[in-house]
């Protein structure tokens, strides 16, 4: 499979979960596992262009697929607009859920660059945060949406390159 554009080849047990594969074999330590049953969203990654929960997928199911994690967001040492949004709006405290929120936001904004607050809340239903009370997370996403709306087309394409 490819992870953030880099080819990865490993032989694993069929029961290895994609979340563990990414952490243990690829060193993608942004992928956090919390509930393990698909409820909390902290293990969210993008598989073949679609947001999924990596704790509920066997690594073997992603054979020959392309995965994007938070490690693939920043480019040339510069944070992605979504990451900046979270930074500027204090949209995290302990940070454990943050990777999942970043990937869910990426997936949302790629589909709909200017979501309403209601659409943001609906889309992020599957991501839980126990520190922030969500208000700053919503602000962060609006901030990212506004920043990205203002940039030139080729830059925007670059921001959603995956």
């Amino acid at each position: 499979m490819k992870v953030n554009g880099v080819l990865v080849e490993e032989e694993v047990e069929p029961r290895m979960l994609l979340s563990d594969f990414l952490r243990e074999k690829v060193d993608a330590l942004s992928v956090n596992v919390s509930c393990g049953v698909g409820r909390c969203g902290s293990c969210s990654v993008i598989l073949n262009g679609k947001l999924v929960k990596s704790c509920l997928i066997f690594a073997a199911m992603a054979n020959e697929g392309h995965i994007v994690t938070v490690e693939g967001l920043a480019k040339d040492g510069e944070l992605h607009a979504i990451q900046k949004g979270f930074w500027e709006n204090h949209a995290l405290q302990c940070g454990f859920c943050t990777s999942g929120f970043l990937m869910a936001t990426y997936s949302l904004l790629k589909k709909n660059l200017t979501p309403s607050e209601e659409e943001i809340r609906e889309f992020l239903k599957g991501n839980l945060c126990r520190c922030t009370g969500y208000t700053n997370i919503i602000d962060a996403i609006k901030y990212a949406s506004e920043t990205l709306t203002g940039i030139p087309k080729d830059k925007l394409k670059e921001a959603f390159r995956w």
Partner: protein
Amino acid sequence: MYYPKNFEYESPNILKEALDLLEKYQQDAKVLAGGQSLIPLMKLRVLSPKIVIDINKLSELSYIKEDDNYINIGALTRHNEVLESELLSRYAKALVDAAKNIADHAIRNMGTIGGNVCHSDPAADYLPVVLALEALLLTISNKGKRTLKADEFLMGPFETSLLPDELLLEIKIPKVKGRVGSSFLKFPYHQGDISLINVATLVKIDENKVVKDCRIAVGGILPKPERVKGAEDVIVGKKVEDKDIVEASKIASETLNPQSDWMASSEYRRALIATLVENSLNLSLERAGARI
């Protein structure tokens, strides 16, 4: 961290290969579609199949098509594809309502309609819909195909009449011609979660707004979702007024005998049945054009 017991993994590229594997391994094998119900159960070791047959490469099982009489949905069609389908929006709005209310965006990207129906959780959201829409389920094995009515397919909690060597191939939704409306409503344990009660209804009216057909199905009850004939009869054959709808929902909540469990008491579920049947009937009537 929970981890499943180890198993052998097969991911056939064509349907025939999958059927051969099922024929060979029978009960020892489990089909893996979206994995959104199977993998949690394997992690908890409630299920520990020896062989897992991953059908995700069988893209020929993923489609939403129409012919003269049916909308045909491939078993591997994801929840998000159901909810985005214009064809289903036109002919089976209740199914789209149900898809919208399943879990969250990420689960809906993986979970499939076939997996949801085969898993047959008594509270699964497509189940009352396939009952109310009188869907047919098309199965396949090396011995041939079978077409089952939804109520013949659903046997009880986590049980279907699918044989060990069979795969669910397709869900067929009959097109009801004329002025028809259907809807689905649920009351979840919490947002994005399994239903305490879910309800699907379908209403067909004639040009004088007299109801010609009415179907009411209720899920979230044991052993499995049910149609409520007594309540349907109140609605059929007349130009429905509010009092009839209240009467039908009362009958539904009195006829059915919902269980008490750690999520809700039987009384609470009864009250939900009355409310959801009333609201769903109103919505279906509105969609059929009875309120214009």
